[in-house]
């Protein structure tokens, strides 16, 4: 019995798995979606979020741990932990693996609609300093998180820079791009890019892959400056009502068979063991998941650096 409230990236958990879990345990699962790490953090900060499982990206896991927002679930002792690929264990955001079990990883870049844009997609310059073909047909995400990171890659500014001059360059770049941006939105991206309402959209690898396989004529760019890397993990917010069920769910999701279903549904790379025989995606049919350019993971910035990121974004949007 009982209920389990999930707060995950929109449309990220396979509904079949949810149903299966509910049938198996008798637990009712509610799923709410978020579209930015900032939203997830805000929810937890407002206190008593009511959620039992949240799936923030690595740098936000670190912030949440530091802010005391997460429940220590002894992740390293969970069956799920055994399923995790070694390279994702004990990473900087959760050095002793007390709090988090990885769910998916991938990159943030941009996608173009090939019906509308025929040009090359080998550089962030296509996106940040658009030519006539893309002017006014670009969409950014609504939150600074990975967008600022991408701009930093393009400009060669290190992530979490505390140097104002460097961050001003980032600001200037985004500011210059703004007139050509049709929307800053993390919502409904699939429709917006798929239907050609915009021709280029800041987006994630797996989402782009899935939409392409659904028939949209789009292409995920491989900019030579690199992509922004991310890894989302299951964590349990402090004060969660149903910690046991949360852990059961995380374990369930990490079982090889389920992880494979999840992989096929979500279309992002899996940090836990999957049954490759049953996996849908290969480098041939899913180049999105196998980047040919460097991938740099977002960092948890110092307060000073974070302030600068925030300043870039608020100055940009006001």
């Amino acid at each position, binding site marked *: 019995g009982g*209920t389990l*409230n*999930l*707060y995950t990236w*929109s*449309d990220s958990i396979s509904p079949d798995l949810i149903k299966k879990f509910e049938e198996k345990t008798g637990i009712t699962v*509610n*799923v*709410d*979606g978020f*579209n930015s790490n900032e939203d997830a953090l805000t929810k937890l900060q*407002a*206190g*008593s*979020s*009511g*959620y*039992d499982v949240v799936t923030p990206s690595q740098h936000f896991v670190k912030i949440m741990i530091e802010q005391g927002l997460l429940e220590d679930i002894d992740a390293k002792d969970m069956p799920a932990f055994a399923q995790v690929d070694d390279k994702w264990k004990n990473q900087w955001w959760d050095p002793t693996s007390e709090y988090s079990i990885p769910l998916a990883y991938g990159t943030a870049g941009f996608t173009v609609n090939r019906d509308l844009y025929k040009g090359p997609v080998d550089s962030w310059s296509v996106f940040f300093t658009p030519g006539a073909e893309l002017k006014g047909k670009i969409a950014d995400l609504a939150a600074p998180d990975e967008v600022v990171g991408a701009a930093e890659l393009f400009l060669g500014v290190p992530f979490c820079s505390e140097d104002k001059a460097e961050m001003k360059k980032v600001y200037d770049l985004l500011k210059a791009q703004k007139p050509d941006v049709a929307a800053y939105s*993390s*919502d*409904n*991206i*699939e*429709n917006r890019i*798929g*239907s050609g309402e915009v021709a280029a959209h800041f987006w994630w690898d797996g989402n782009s892959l899935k939409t392409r396989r*659904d028939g949209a004529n789009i292409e995920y760019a491989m900019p030579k400056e690199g992509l922004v890397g991310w890894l989302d993990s299951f964590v349990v917010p402090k*004060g969660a009502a149903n910690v046991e069920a949360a852990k059961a769910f995380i374990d369930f999701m990490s079982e090889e068979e389920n992880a494979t279903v999840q992989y096929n549904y979500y279309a992002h790379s899996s940090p836990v063991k999957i049954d490759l025989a049953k996996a849908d995606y290969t480098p041939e049919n899913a180049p999105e998941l196998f980047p040919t350019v460097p991938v740099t993971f977002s960092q948890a910035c110092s307060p000073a650096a974070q302030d600068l990121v925030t300043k870039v974004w608020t100055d940009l949007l006001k």
Partner: protein
Amino acid sequence: MSTQHDVRHYPGAGLVTWAFFLWLYAPIAVVIWFSFNENRLVSVWSGFSTKWYAAALENDALLGALRTSLTVAVTATVVATLVALSAAMVLTRHADLKFRRLSETVVNLPLLLPEIVIAVASLILFSQIGFTNGLARLIVAHSAFCTPFAFLPIRARLAGMSADYEEAAQDLYAAPFTAFRRVTFPLILPGVFAGAMLAFVISMDDFITSNMLNTGGTTTLPVYIFSLIKKGTTPELNAISTLLILASLIIATLALAISARAMRRG
């Protein structure tokens, strides 16, 4: 009579009115129309289908949100209507009351403040005092902002009802509460009903506050629909909207018909 001489007739006004009603209903018609679209992309018509209705009716998350919304709305409606009824009785029947205007303003306060401010304020308060039960948070907040909506029709009805009836009841040996139960209440019932309906709809419709206070497991219908829009819309959303429109129309028609009937009798 020939309209040529009718001083009340203004040429052109009728046309504007027609256009207005067209504009008022066109969007609703469009939503309904595309709910039968077979295509996954809402506004690209590719054939007729009712499959999205099937999907909507099987959507557990939707039903969960509906359950939450109904629980909140029904509870908030009851609370708001009782609070409003009691305040309206005092405010309309005691002209010499101290702080009458102030009290009236206080009851109407939610109407005077932008909802976003109230939502933010409640969010801060609740998080500060550690008020954690999601459903209870919504009920408290909704009760507050629904109160003026329940209050206005009740007060209007009470004000429109001559105090003679209550006096006549007392004159005929009814103690004050008997007078209320047997005379005042039945006579203002249409107002109470209209107020309750309004409160109910306002609560069902609320997005801003619910979105701010929303916690895991207590997603309300509008917040859920918003999340669908965020996620990427399919005609399922249109199907859900159509069902919602139908439900609203039925409720509204019922409410208006009942109060119109009462009005004719009164």
